[in-house]
C-alpha cells in the first residue's frame, strides 16, 4: 500500500577497508580541531583540504572515469561522506559540487560542460554554490522572478538570489532563472545555468546569520551575460531538474549528523558512570542515531540500485533534523551549562554554536513543512 519502503542495506567489505583509510586521513588532517570547529563541518570552506580529498580520489567517486571520476559504488561514497561528517571535516569547498552540481551536469549537462567542469571538480579545485531562493521566493520556489532573457549568443540576467551559501567563495553557481513567463503555469519556463561568480554585473553581499557568521549571501544580477553553452539542460526544463537535484540534497547523512559532535561531548561530560537520568537520555539519543543511520544507509542502497528515493529522503530529513535539533535541548536539560560564544569551555562553545545553528537545520534544503507536504503527496493525500 505504501509508496515508500526501506530495505536494509549492507555495506560491502571494500567499503569497510575504505572507511579505515578515510579515518586515518582525517586523523592526520583534523588533529587539532576543537569540538566547535568540528560541528561547523559543512560551513568549513577549506580549498586546501578539498584538494587533498580530491587527490585521494574521494570526490566524484561514482562518476565515469572519463570525467575524472572513479566509478566506485554509491555505498563507498556514502562511507567517505559519513566519516567526513562524523569527524567534522571542512567539506564545503567540494561537496556541494560532489553532491549536487556534478550529478546534475552528468545527468542534464552537455558533453562539453561535463568535460570542462567535472574533472576540475573531482580534483577539488572547483567549488559551487546553489542559486535557488530569491527575496520573495523561499519555499514557493517556482515563484522565482529573476529573468534570463535571450540575447545574441546567450542570455541577459536581471534579479537577485538570497541565502546563497559560499557564493563569495565559490567559482560557479548553478542558478535557476525564469526564461519564460506564463502566469497560468509558474513551473514552466524555468531553466538552469552555470554562472561564473566573477561575471561582470554580479554583486555579492554578505547576509550575516544570527550568530554573526557569514556563509549566506545576496547575489544581485544586473545585466549579467551568460553564454548559451552554459545553460544546463533544455530551456524550460529547470523545474524537473531542480526537483531531481533537491532530492540529492536531502538524502545524505548530513541530515542527521549536524549535532553529532555535541553528542560525543555529552558522553564525555556524563563520564563512564552516568546517573540514571543521563543514561536514559543518552540511550534514547543513541537509539535514534542508530536508526537514522540505517535509514540513511537504506537510501544509499536505493541510489546504488538506481532507484529514486525522493520520498524516503524527505522522510529521513524530517526525522534527522528533528534529532539534530533535539541534541542541544537534551544537553541543556542534563548538564545545565550556559551556551557561550567566544569564551567558556569547549562544551559551552559547542553548545552555543549548535543552539544558534539549530533553527536552520529544518529550514535548509527544504523546510520541515515542505517535506511533510511531499510525504503527504506520497501518501496520496494531495
Amino acid at each position, binding site marked *: 500500500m505504501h509508496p515508500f519502503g526501506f530495505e536494509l542495506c549492507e555495506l560491502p567489505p571494500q567499503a569497510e577497508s575504505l572507511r579505515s583509510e578515510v579515518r586515518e586521513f582525517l586523523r592526520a588532517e583534523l588533529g587539532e580541531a576543537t569540538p566547535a570547529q568540528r560541528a561547523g563541518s559543512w560551513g568549513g570552506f577549506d580549498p586546501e583540504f578539498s584538494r587533498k580529498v580530491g587527490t585521494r580520489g574521494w570526490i566524484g567517486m561514482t562518476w565515469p572515469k572519463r570525467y575524472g571520476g572513479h566509478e566506485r559504488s554509491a555505498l563507498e561514497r556514502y562511507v567517505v561522506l559519513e566519516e567526513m561528517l562524523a569527524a567534522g571535516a571542512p567539506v564545503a569547498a567540494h561537496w556541494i559540487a560532489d553532491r549536487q552540481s556534478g550529478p546534475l551536469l552528468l545527468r542534464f549537462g552537455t558533453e562539453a560542460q561535463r568535460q570542462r567542469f567535472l574533472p576540475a571538480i573531482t580534483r577539488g579545485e572547483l567549488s559551487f554554490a546553489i542559486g535557488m531562493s530569491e527575496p520573495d521566493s523561499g519555499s514557493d520556489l517556482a515563484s522565482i522572478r529573476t529573468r534570463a532573457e535571450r540575447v545574441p549568443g546567450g542570455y541577459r540576467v536581471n534579479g537577485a538570489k538570497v541565502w546563497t551559501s559560499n557564493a563569495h567563495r565559490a567559482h560557479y553557481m548553478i542558478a535557476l532563472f525564469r526564461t519564460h513567463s506564463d502566469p497560468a503555469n509558474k513551473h514552466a519556463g524555468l531553466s538552469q545555468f552555470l554562472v561564473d561568480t566573477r561575471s561582470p554585473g554580479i554583486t555579492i553581499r554578505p547576509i550575516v546569520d544570527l550568530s554573526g557568521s557569514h556563509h549566506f549571501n545576496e547575489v544581485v544580477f544586473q545585466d549579467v551575460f551568460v553564454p548559451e553553452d552554459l545553460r544546463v539542460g533544455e530551456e524550460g526544463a529547470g523545474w524537473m531538474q531542480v526537483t531531481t537535484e533537491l532530492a540529492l540534497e536531502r538524502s545524505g547523512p548530513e541530515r542527521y549528523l549536524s549535532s553529532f559532535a555535541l553528542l560525543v561531548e555529552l558522553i564525555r561530560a556524563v563520564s*563512564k558512570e552516568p546517573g540514571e537520568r543521563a543514561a*536514559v537520555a543518552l540511550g534514547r539519543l543513541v537509539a535514534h542515531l542508530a536508526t537514522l543511520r540505517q535509514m540513511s544507509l537504506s537510501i544509499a542502497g536505493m541510489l546504488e540500485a538506481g532507484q529514486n528515493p525522493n520520498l524516503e529522503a524527505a522522510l529521513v530529513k524530517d526525522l534527522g533534523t528533528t534529532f539534530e535539533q533535539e541534541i542541544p535541548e537534551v544537553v541543556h536539560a542534563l548538564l545545565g551549562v550556559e551556551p557561550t560564544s567566544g569564551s567558556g569551555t569547549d562544551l559551552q562553545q559547542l553548545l552555543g554554536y549548535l543552539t544558534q545553528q539549530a533553527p536552520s537545520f529544518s529550514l535548509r534544503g527544504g523546510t520541515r513543512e515542505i517535506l511533510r507536504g511531499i510525504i*503527504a503527496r506520497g501518501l496520496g493525500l494531495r
Partner: protein
Amino acid sequence: MLADVVARLFTDRVTKDLLEAAEQGQWPTSLWETVEESGLTVPLVPEAKGGAGGTWRDAHVVVRAAGRHAVPLPLPETIVASWLLSGAGLDVPRGPLTLAPVQRDDALTLRRAGTAWRLSGTAARVPWGGAAGHVVVVAAADGRTMVALLAAGSGRVTADLNLAREPRHTLGFDDAPVLAVAPAGDHIPANAIRLYGALIRSAQMAGGLQYLLDQSVRYATERRQFGKPIGAFQAIQHQLAVLSEQSAAAGVAAAHAFRAAEGGDARFEIAVAKIRAGEAAGIGAAIAHQVHGAIGFTYEHSLHFVTRRLWAWRAEFGDEGHWAAELGQAVARRGADALWPDLTAR
C-alpha cells in the same frame, strides 16, 4: 513470498469477530492449528528437528505480520521459545509456547533433584501463561545459562490481562518438575527472555504502526468535513507525515535488530529497536486516534485492537526507559570516542 502467504492468512482469518471473541477469553483453536501446520511457529528450528529451517529474516516477516494483524496468539513467543529449545539441543513440543521470566526482578531458580531438575520462583505477567502448553525458561544453574522446558500446568496460575486483553498470567513454581533442560546455545545471555522478548515486541509494534498508518490514511481520504476529505487539510497531512516517519523508523529499527540476531550478538540493536519502536508506538497511536476522531475511540471501531496492543507492548519486556538506561550506560562505559566506531561496526 512468505510475506504474501502470511498476510493473506491473517487478513482472511483474524477478523473483528475473532479478535472480540479472543478478548472474551476464547482461544482461537482453528487459527492456531493453521498457523502451526504452516510451520509459522518454528521458522528458526532446523528441518531435521521438525522446524521450517528458516532465518531470522523469515521470523521477522511472521512477527511483524502478527503485530500488523493483532493476531491473538502467542505466535512470536513460540518462535523465540522453539528457537531457544532447539538451540539448546532440546525437542520442541507441539502447541503454543511461552517465555519466562518476563520481568526484570523476577528470578527463577533451577536446582538438581537427583537426576531430574526442579524450578522454583514466581514469574509475573507471562504472555498467554494459561493458554500455552509449555513454558520455556532461561535461568542460571551450575554457573551457566540453561534453557528449561516445563508444562504450563506445573505452576500456580493467577490470571490477568494486559490493556489489549491478552492473557498475562502470573506463574508460581514451587519445586515444579522440569521436563527437559540443557545449556543454552551460543550467544544466549542470561537475560535472553527479556532480550528476545523485546526483539519480538519491537517488530510487532512496527507491524502495528504500519496498520495505523494504512487505516489513518484511508480514513482521511474517506471522511469528509467542511465539504472535502479531511486528508485535504494541511494539519491532517502533516500529522500523517509524522505517523509515516514513526512507522518507517520503527520498521527499520526492528528489521535491523532481526538481522543482527542472525549474526549472534544483537544486544545493541535490540535495545535500539525496543526504544525506537516503543517511542514510535506512543506517538503513532496518538496521531491515529487524533485523525480518526471520536469514531476511533469507540469499541465498535477496530482501531483500538492495535492501539491498545501498542500501549501494552511498549511496556512489556522492558520499556523504553529500561532499555535506554542499559544502552546509555553501555555507551558511556565505552567512552565518547568509541561511539562512532562502535556504531559503524554494527
